[in-house]
């Protein structure tokens, strides 16, 4: 049994403290009774109740949920297909260009992706609104799904698939009965990552949305620019809770078969 040295333990403790302290502080202050965000006035849920009256915020949150659901569902299907193409179809023509188009969006600065998609939508005369945001988010997040599913596909034993095919199982059915159940944890992880990326995105949504179509991050951003407000602490805490529950649930689901890597 290996033990962690004091240096390593310190590095871990400091690293995790740095990662979590700001989030914990934000959550605690969302329960602050005082309107002054820097003065502690006792525990209270008044800012959560205040959110219920903020119809614009609620509308933006619902819109964001819809956009995130639609785009992550699409991205999961397209991303899984791309992962299959990359790992199961050997060398097809255009494979290099394909892999370039999958990895580039992962690191491409969002301002560029956002601007270029907007110019496309204008060029083809598509009315901008939630539908264009969904297309934009699908494009970005499907690449993350591909990377996660691909690492899972590359990691498992292909002899199961080969055995099924040798016994005369058609490719489509082999995929549904053998491959898909095996890669399911990675597909779910990919879906959740796509969902949370979409729920989170400010820059690409700002470029590709149209008049009247406001997502939650756009709404939060316009409030945050004016300074810290306790209501914003409350909505942020709710978002953090939603994402944390989803991620922990996904990791419990994936525990049986191991997790796909996120990078």
């Amino acid at each position, binding site marked *: 049994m290996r033990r*962690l*040295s004091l*240096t*390593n*333990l310190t*590095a*871990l403790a400091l*690293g*995790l403290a740095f*990662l979590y302290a*700001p*989030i914990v*502080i934000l959550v605690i202050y969302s329960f602050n009774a005082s309107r002054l965000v*820097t003065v502690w006035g006792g525990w209270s849920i008044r800012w959560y109740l205040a959110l219920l009256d903020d119809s614009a915020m609620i509308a933006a949150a619902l819109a964001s949920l819809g956009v995130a659901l639609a785009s992550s569902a699409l991205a999961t299907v*397209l991303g899984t*297909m*791309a992962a*299959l193409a990359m790992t*199961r*179809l*050997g060398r*097809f023509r255009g494979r290099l260009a*394909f*892999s370039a*188009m999958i*990895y*580039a969006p*992962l690191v*491409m*600065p*969002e*301002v*560029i992706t956002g*601007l*270029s998609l907007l*110019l*496309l939508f*204008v*060029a083809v005369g598509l009315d901008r609104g939630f539908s264009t945001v969904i297309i934009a988010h*699908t494009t970005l997040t499907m690449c993350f799904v591909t990377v996660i599913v691909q*690492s899972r596909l*590359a*990691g498992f034993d292909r002899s199961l698939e*080969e055995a099924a095919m040798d016994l005369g199982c058609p*490719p489509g059915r*082999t995929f549904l009965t053998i491959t898909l159940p095996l890669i399911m944890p990675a597909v779910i992880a990919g879906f959740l990552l796509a969902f*949370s990326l979409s729920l*989170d995105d*400010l*820059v690409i949504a700002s470029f590709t949305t149209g008049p009247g179509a406001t997502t939650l*991050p756009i709404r939060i*951003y316009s409030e945050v620019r004016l300074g810290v407000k306790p209501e914003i602490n409350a909505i*942020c805490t709710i*978002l953090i809770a939603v*994402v*944390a529950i989803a*991620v*922990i649930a996904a990791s419990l689901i994936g525990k049986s078969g191991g997790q796909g890597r*996120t*990078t």
Partner: protein
Amino acid sequence: MVPLGRRAADKVSAMPAPPQPPRSSSAKLVVLAPYLWLVAFFFVPFLIVLKISLSQTAIAQPPYLPVLDLAAGWQGIKDFVAGLSLENYATLASDDLYFFSYLRSLTVAAVSTVILVLAGFPIAYAMARAPRRWRPVLLMLVVLPFWTSFLIRVYAWINILQRDGLLNQTLSALGLIDQPLTWLATDTAIYIGLVYSYLPFMVLPLYASLEKLDDSLLEAAADLGCPRWKAFWTVTVPLALPGLGAGALLCFIPIVGEFVVPDLLGGSDTTMIGQTLWTEFFANKDWPVASAVAVVLVVLLVGPIAIYQHLQSRGVENR
């Protein structure tokens, strides 16, 4: 059978394989659907950005003229070429603002990448050294903030860094300062925000490399009389280089174009190129100049992106 039975060919990837187009129609669909999606919504938009960046501002104000009128045939293509102009690039070259924005973005990205390596390496190293049963939990703890909203994480720092925020309260309670210090709207705040936001991107690939490190290599080095610090530099660090490279690029490239962190935490006197592009587009409504800014940014980043792709696809094939 052919598409799925190619394991042997994949193993000897150095051997040139003849191009083998997928045969069945379902295989074609699996390739074509995501392929066409990415061509339509990732590749083509770039060509449009390039085209708009070569348009004159007057004709390219939204809604701008058709990008290319193919119906007009040869004449249309001639008009298209005749309409190109380098005016927007001349604007970029003539105004110092753009040059300094690019320079500042590259500097900020380079400095924060170095800080990220220095901060991320000890964490990833400690994770990889931790007892095996702790590792999934530690991995989860590092990944979890990465899933929470970027915007929220940057916003959380405004709470802490503002003038009467927690940082100043803590420092004065400890008697370290008499006057509250200014943290917000400084470069320090930008660096804190960037390191905070991108730390998981650095730790994860580094951890993936370090975890694979075989202990027996270090034991062998020790048996042969190699001091521990030397074994660290000659064994551990070289083996961690692929992860280090991937992590550094995964941070450096997006930070160059970063908008949210400098906008919310930084001052208004110096801007990064992402903010400049945002202002050209949203405030000045000058789409052609914004496009030219984007094109130059892509040109600056194309090298690092190519290296990143190379590292990533090699990593997948070696697994």
